[in-house]
C-alpha cells in the first residue's frame, strides 16, 4: 500500500488501514518506546496510548513536514519521554542505559517478546564510544541535544555532528540486514 493511500484510509477511519498501519509499524514503534522504557508493562501502556493517539489524531499529521513514520515515531518517543519524566514513573523504574537494556533483553530472553531485528546491542556495536554516548543520551534517556550539551559540557556542534555520524553508522548496519 502506498503511503498516500494509507493516509487517506486512516483519515477516513478505515479499519483495514488502521490494521495495516499496526501490522507494518507496531514493532518498529514499540521498539522506539522500549528503548526508553525498560519496564515492559509500562512500555505497552505507553504504546497503547500513543497508537490510539496516532489513529485518532491522524488529521494533525502534515505530510509537508515529513513522512508518516517520522511523525508516528516522534509521538511514540515523546510519549515515552513524558512518561519517564512523570512522578509516577520515577518511583517505579529507572531510566534505561544501553547496558541495562541489553542486559534486560538478555536476561528476559525467554519471557520478552521476540526481538524482530538484530536488537539494539548489535546495532550499537559499530559505534565508537563518543557516538555511543550521545546516542545513549538521546535515544535511550530521551535527552534533547541541548540537554546533552549542557549536562556534559560539550559544544552543541560536537553533539550534533556525533548524532549525524552515529545515524550514518547505524543506517549502514541496518541496511546490511
Amino acid at each position, binding site marked *: 500500500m502506498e503511503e498516500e493511500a494509507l493516509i487517506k484510509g486512516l483519515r477516513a477511519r478505515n479499519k483495514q488501514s488502521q490494521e495495516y498501519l499496526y501490522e507494518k509499524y507496531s514493532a518498529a514503534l514499540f521498539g522506539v518506546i*522500549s*528503548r526508553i522504557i525498560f519496564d515492559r508493562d509500562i512500555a505497552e501502556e505507553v504504546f497503547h496510548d500513543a497508537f490510539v493517539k496516532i489513529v485518532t489524531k491522524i488529521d494533525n499529521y502534515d505530510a509537508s513536514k515529513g513522512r508518516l513514520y517520522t511523525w508516528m515515531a516522534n509521538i511514540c*518517543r515523546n510519549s515515552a519521554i513524558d512518561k519517564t519524566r512523570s512522578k509516577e514513573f520515577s518511583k517505579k523504574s529507572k531510566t534505561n542505559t544501553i547496558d541495562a537494556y541489553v542486559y534486560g533483553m538478555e536476561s528476559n530472553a525467554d519471557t520478552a*517478546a521476540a526481538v524482530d*531485528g*538484530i536488537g539494539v546491542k548489535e*546495532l550499537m556495536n559499530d559505534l565508537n564510544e563518543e557516538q555511543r554516548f550521545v546516542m545513549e543520551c538521546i535515544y535511550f534517556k530521551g535527552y534533547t541535544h541541548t540537554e546533552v550539551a549542557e549536562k556534559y559540557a560539550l559544544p552543541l556542534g560536537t553533539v*550534533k*555532528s556525533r548524532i549525524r555520524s552515529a545515524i550514518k553508522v547505524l543506517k549502514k548496519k541496518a541496511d546490511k540486514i
Partner: protein
Amino acid sequence: MDIQAYISSGKLELFVLGDLNETEQQEVLAMAKKYPEINQEILAIEDAMLAIDQASAVSPSPKLKDKIFDTLESEDKAPIPLSSEEAKASSEKASNIKAVSTSNPWKTFAVAASVVAVISVSTAIYYANQYFAVEQRFAIALQQNAVLAEEMQTNQVQLKELNSGMEKFISGDFEKILMKGEDFPMQKDAAVDVFWDKDSKEVLLSVNQLASLDPTNDYQLWAIGEEGPIGIGLVDPGKKFDLQIMDIASDAQAFAITIEPKGGSESPTLEKLVVLGEVS
C-alpha cells in the same frame, strides 16, 4: 549558502528526531523547499531512522493489539469522543480529589510539624540572642574590671609616694618657703610651696596653683645659691596639694620655677620665671 555545510551540521537529524524548536523547524522546512539536496537528505535520514527502528524492532504482545483496537472501537461508538488519555486524565483528577481528602491527616501532621519547627527555631533564636547579649555584657564587665585594677594600681603607687613624702616631711626638719607669681608677668596667681631640710638637703614641693603647660614645655625648679641656680627637678603642675620629692639642694638662698623646653635646661630662662621664693 553552503548547502553541504548545512547538511553536515547535524541539524537535519535533529529535525527528524523532533528535537528542534518551532522556529528552527520552520527554517529547515523552508530550506528543504528551496534546496532539493536538503530535501533529499531529510528523506534519506527519515529512511535511515525507519531502517534503524526496524532493525531494532520489538513486537508488542498480541494481547495489546486487541486492547488497542478495542479502545479505538469504543471511541468510535462513544457519542463524545474521549481519547483514553483524556479519560485517564479525568480519572486521575478524580483520584487526585480523593487523594487530597485522604491526605488530610498528613496535612494536619505537616502543619503541626511546621508549627513545632517555627517555635523551636524562634526559641533557638531567642536564646541565641540572650546568649550574645550576656556575652557582650560580660566582655564589658571584664574591661571595666581591668580599668579599675589599673586605676587601683596607680592609686597605690600614688599612695606610696605620698606616704614616703609624708614620712620624710614628718621625720625631717623642713622649712616652708612660699613661692608666688605676683611680681612676675607670667602667672600672677601662681603659688607653690617648697619645703627644704637644710640638714638632709631634701626638697619637697607642693603645687597650689600652676597653669598646665603645652606638651613641649616643663616647669623646672631651681635652687639659687652661691654658685648660681641649680636645676633640682621638674614640677608636675597637675599634682596639686601633693608632696613632690625633688632633688637635694645643698645651698639655697632662694627657690624659683621657670618654664623650660621639655625635659628641662642647664640654666634657667629668666624671662620665663614663674614664681620665686626667698629662704628666710
